[in-house]
């Protein structure tokens, strides 16, 4: 196995995530695309960990940290979406232009 095949797969998934963030209108689906990008980053971290044969398993440990922070991010993100929905009766990112000049 070469390192490049994992890196290209990670890059493709990250690009799909970027596309999703840019095109989705529903706020929950934007968060879903962010999760896709974080999963792509995890693939890169673990692949480099194995590539460098790290004695400290740094890549794997940081993949675990990314998973933990992503879980926290989803919790907060969904709470904010819920609050917006409760106040404005929809969760479309296009309609959130309160701070626009």
């Amino acid at each position: 196995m070469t390192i490049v095949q994992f890196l290209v797969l990670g890059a493709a998934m990250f690009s799909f995530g970027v596309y999703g963030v840019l095109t989705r209108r529903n706020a929950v689906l934007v968060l879903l695309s962010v999760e896709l990008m974080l999963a792509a980053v995890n693939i890169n971290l673990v692949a480099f960990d194995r590539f460098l044969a790290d004695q400290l398993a740094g890549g794997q440990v940081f993949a675990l940290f990314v998973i933990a922070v992503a879980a926290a991010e989803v919790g907060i993100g969904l709470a904010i979406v819920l609050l917006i929905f409760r106040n404005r009766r929809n969760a479309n990112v296009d309609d959130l232009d309160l701070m626009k000049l």
Partner: protein
Amino acid sequence: MTFTDWVAQAENYVFLAIAIPMLFSAWRVVASQNVVHSVLYLVGALAGSAALFLLLGSEFVAWTVVLVYIGAVVVLFLFGIMITRAPLGQDVELSQPLRQRLPAAVVSGSLFLLMTGAMFDAFGGDVIPETEATRTFDVGISIFERWVIPFEVVSVILLAALVGGIVLARRDPDEMTEEVVSESEEVPQ
């Protein structure tokens, strides 16, 4: 490693068998016109990444992805969709119109080409050494000896997110009592 060497290795076919369905799922996550299908395809993409971690020999990360992502985060997303009353059937309004999707496709496509080019330039043909799978024991020792301060920081972040999530999502107690009062006033009228 040349392409003929790559084709001769059996584990690369396992990689392809995981990677191709995974990319299809990832595409459906961002392009599906049904919200629930989007979330369920995310399960496919994450399960693919867990299978790749197993292939790379990092078992603890793989099972953590299964437990935390597929077990908890996806359920949380489904709750979010149900609570915000997203349209459950087909809906073309989920994505931006084509004139906004095209620039997004150009941006993400050129990002992919840029990253792929840089990676082939830097690591083209470098092989991942065949070492033993990382034991969970070693990962645990590493976390609690070398990476203990980042670990503590992550635990504080989780605590802050817990408190913040509860504060954001619950209703204000004063607001709730006012609603109860106004509802009970409406009944006699």
